C-alpha cells in the first residue's frame, strides 16, 4: 500500500471524523444521563451557521466557537425542558428539534450575511492547520495525526477527558446512576432533573461544536445541508460505541475513513457513479447498526442506560 496514500487517508479521516466525534460524545453524555436527544442534526446545523456567521462578521474564531457552543446548548435546553419538566415524548421532541433546528439554520443562513443577505457562498475565516513541532515529523503518521486544526486537537483531548469524567469522578458516577436508575438516584439525594438538564445542554454544546468544525474547518463556509446527516450518524455511533467515549473513536474513525475514501476515489476519477459513493456512509450506518445490535450477548451486559428515554417523576401515588 502506498504509504503516502495511507497518510493522506488518515489525515482526511481525522479531519472528517472530528465533527462526528464531538457530536457523538455529546450524545453519549446526554443518553448516559437518561435523555434521548434525536435533535443532534438540528443542533449541528445551528452550530455550523452561527459559528460561520460570527467568524465572518467579527473575524474572531474564538468567539465563533463560543457562540456555536452556546447555540447548541440553548437548542438542547428546549428539548430538555420538554422532555424533563413537561415529560413530553422524547422521540418526537428530538425530531421536532431537528426539523426546527434545520429550518432555523436555513433561516439564519439567509439572513446573517452582510446587510441581511445570504451567507451561502461567502468566504470567511477558517481554522488553519497547526502542525505540532517534532511530533508532526514522525514518519507516516506524524503529518496526519499532528498536522490538524485546533478543534481536531481538541477532540484528542476531549475523548480521554470524557472517559475519565464518566468513570472516575463523582459527577460522572451520579450521571450514570441518573441514567440507569433515576428512582435510586433520587432516593440517594441526587437531583435527577438538574443532572439531566446539565448533560442535555452539554450534549447540545458539543453537537454545536461539531457543526462549527464543519463550517470553520472541513467544508469552510455555509451551505444548505452542510451536515448531510452526520447528526443522525452520530446517534447511531452512540449505540455502536456502546455508550463509551473510547469506543466512539472507532466509530468516528470508521466513518471518517469512509468519507476519506469517497474523497480520494472521486479525486482519482473513478467510474463508480457519485451517487453510489455518496450512499456509502448511510449504507454503512445501517450495516454497523445491524451488526452491533445482533451481537446480542454483549448488549445484555453493556447495554443502553437502563432508564434511557423514560421520563422520571417522583410518583406521588398511594
Amino acid at each position, binding site marked *: 500500500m502506498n504509504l503516502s496514500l495511507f497518510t493522506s487517508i488518515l489525515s482526511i479521516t481525522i479531519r472528517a471524523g472530528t465533527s462526528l466525534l464531538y457530536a457523538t460524545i455529546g450524545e453519549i453524555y446526554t443518553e448516559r444521563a437518561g435523555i434521548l436527544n434525536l435533535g443532534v442534526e438540528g443542533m449541528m446545523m445551528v452550530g455550523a451557521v452561527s459559528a460561520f456567521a460570527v467568524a465572518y462578521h467579527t473575524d474572531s474564531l474564538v468567539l465563533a466557537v463560543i457562540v456555536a457552543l452556546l447555540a447548541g446548548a440553548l437548542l438542547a435546553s428546549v428539548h430538555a425542558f420538554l422532555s424533563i419538566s413537561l415529560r413530553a415524548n422524547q422521540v418526537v421532541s428530538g425530531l421536532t428539534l431537528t426539523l426546527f433546528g434545520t429550518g432555523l439554520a436555513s433561516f439564519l443562513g439567509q439572513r446573517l450575511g452582510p446587510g441581511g443577505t445570504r451567507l451561502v457562498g461567502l468566504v470567511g475565516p477558517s481554522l488553519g492547520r497547526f502542525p505540532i513541532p517534532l511530533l508532526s515529523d514522525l514518519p507516516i503518521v506524524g503529518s496526519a495525526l499532528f498536522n490538524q486544526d485546533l478543534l481536531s486537537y481538541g477532540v484528542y483531548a476531549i475523548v480521554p477527558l470524557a472517559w475519565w469524567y464518566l468513570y472516575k469522578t463523582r*459527577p460522572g*458516577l451520579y450521571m*450514570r446512576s441518573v441514567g440507569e*436508575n433515576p*428512582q*435510586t438516584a433520587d*432516593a440517594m439525594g441526587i437531583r435527577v432533573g438538574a443532572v439531566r438538564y446539565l448533560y442535555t445542554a452539554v450534549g447540545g454544546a458539543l453537537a454545536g461544536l461539531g457543526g462549527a468544525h464543519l463550517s470553520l474547518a472541513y467544508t469552510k463556509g455555509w451551505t444548505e445541508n452542510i451536515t448531510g446527516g452526520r447528526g443522525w450518524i452520530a446517534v447511531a455511533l452512540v449505540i455502536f460505541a456502546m455508550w463509551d467515549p473510547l469506543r466512539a473513536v472507532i466509530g468516528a474513525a470508521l466513518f471518517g475513513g469512509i468519507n476519506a475514501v469517497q474523497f480520494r476515489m472521486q479525486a482519482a476519477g473513478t467510474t463508480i457513479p457519485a451517487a453510489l459513493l455518496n450512499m456509502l456512509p448511510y449504507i454503512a450506518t445501517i450495516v454497523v447498526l445491524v451488526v452491533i445490535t445482533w451481537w446480542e450477548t454483549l448488549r445484555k451486559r453493556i447495554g443502553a442506560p437502563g432508564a434511557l428515554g423514560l421520563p422520571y417523576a417522583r410518583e*406521588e401515588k*398511594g
Partner: protein
Amino acid sequence: MTGERLAVPVLRMAGITKHFPGVLANDHVDLELYEGEVLALLGENGAGKSTLMNVLCGLYRPDEGTITVRGERVDIQSPRDAYELGIGMVHQNFMLVETMTVAENVVLGLEGLSFQPEFRRVKRRLQELGSRYGLQVDPDAYIWQLSVGEQQRVEILKLLYRDVDILILDEPTAVLTPQEVDDLVEVLRRVVKEGKAAIFITHKLREVMMFSDRVTVLRGGRNVATRSTSETSPEELARLMVGREVLFQLERTTCELGPTVLEIEGLKALNNKGLPALRGVSLTVRAGEIVGIAGVAGNGQRELAECITGLRDAVGGDVRVKGTCITNCSPLRAIREGVSHVPEDRVEMGLVGDMTVAENLALKAYRTSELSRGPVLFPDGMNRFAQQLIDGFDIATPGPHTQVKFLSGGNLQKAILARELMACEGLLVAVHPTRGLDVGATESVRELLLEQRDQGTAVLLISEDLDELLEISDRIAVMFEGEIVGVVPAEDADRDRIGLMMAGQRLDEEGAAP
C-alpha cells in the same frame, strides 16, 4: 429483649395526614419510636404503612402533621434531609444501580464525597461495618452479580455507612429464605444494641412476634393500636389488623381427580441473565386439583410459569398439556391448547391500561365467533360479553367503556381472572394472584380459584404466601434453585418441613429441625 425506655422517644410522628387522588392514605397517625428498640409497623396492604414511612424518609410531604426527632421539630423535604437527621429506609424494591459496584452504590449521593472518590477508604470502612454487624459483602462486586439477600445487605450497609440511627425496613423478609431471615434478625439485634432504633413494615404476624419489641397496628390509614409484643398474641394482632374475626380456613371440599392435564418432564430453562433457572423440573397436575408451588421468589417459579405459557423457551425437557406437547411453542399455541394465565405483572402484562374494560375483557375472546367474524370485530358483541363478565364476577366499574387504568387493584385482578377463567379450557396458571390485594379481594380470588378447581380445571398456583398455599392447595411442591425438592399433600403439611425445603433441604433427607 430489653429496650431502655427513655422519657423522650427518639422519634415522634404526630397527626400525620396524607392524601392522594381519591384516597386518604394516612389519617392523623401518631407514632413513637424509642432508642434501642425494634418497632413493627403492622397492617394489611393499603393500610398506609409504606406511605407513613415514605413521609418519614422524605419521599412524600405530609398534608398535615409534625415530626419530632430527638426532641426537635423537623421538616423533612427530601431523602437528603432524612439522612442528615439520621433516618434512612431500606425499600422493598431495592434502590440499587445494577450496573455499578457495591462501593459505588454505597457512596452515591454521599454528603462530602470528593470529586475523585477514594474508593480504597470506602472499601475499608465497608469491611469494618460488615464485620461489626454481620453484613459481609464484596465491595467490588456488581449488584447484578449478588443474590437478593446480599443485595439487601448492601442496602443496610448504605444506611450504616451514613451513620443512620433510625433504620426503616419495608417488608424485608419477602425475598429471603428462612435462614436469611434468621441472619437478618441477628443483624437487627446487633444494630439496636448500640442505641440505634429500627422500624420494620410487615403484614406477617409471625415476624412481628419474632422480631419486634413493640408493634403499632395501622388499619384504613389510622393507628388503631400499639402494643408491647410480649403482651399480645397473633390472634389479637390479626383482629386489630383486619377489624373482624379472620377466617383462617376456607371451606374446602375434596374433589374427584380427573385425568392428567399438565405434565412437565425434566424441564430445563435459562433466565434472562443466561444462567440456569430450571434444572430439570418434573411435575404433574390433574384435573380438579390445585397444585401450589412454594418457594422464595427467584428460585425459578417465574421461569416455570413462562415456559408453560409459551413466553419462554426451554433448553431441555418437555411440557405437555392434555397429551399435546407444547414445549417451546408460541403463547398463541399454548392458549389454543387450553392454557390460561393470570400473570405476575398484573398491570404491565395482563392489561392495556388506556383501553376500556370491554376491550381488556375481550383480549382473549376476540378471536372467537361471538365477538368477531373473519377480520371484522363486533363492538356490540364485545360490550355484551363484557357486561356478562362484569355482572358474573362482580367487577366494580362505572361501565364497560371506562378505561381500565381507573379500576382499583382488586377489581383489576378480578377482571383478569374473569377473562382467563372464561377462556380456560383445562389448565390455569396463576402467579401470585393475591399479591397486593386487600382481604376482601383476596378472599374472592381464592374462592374463584377453588370454584374453578371444583369444576374440573387443573390449577397451578404459584405464591409466596405459604398460608395461602396451605389454605387452598391440594398438594404443595417446593422449588429451590430451579428444582422441585419435594411434593407434599397440603392436608397435614408441616410448616417447618416446608420451610426447610424452601431453604434447600430435600424431602428424604433427615435433618434436625431448628
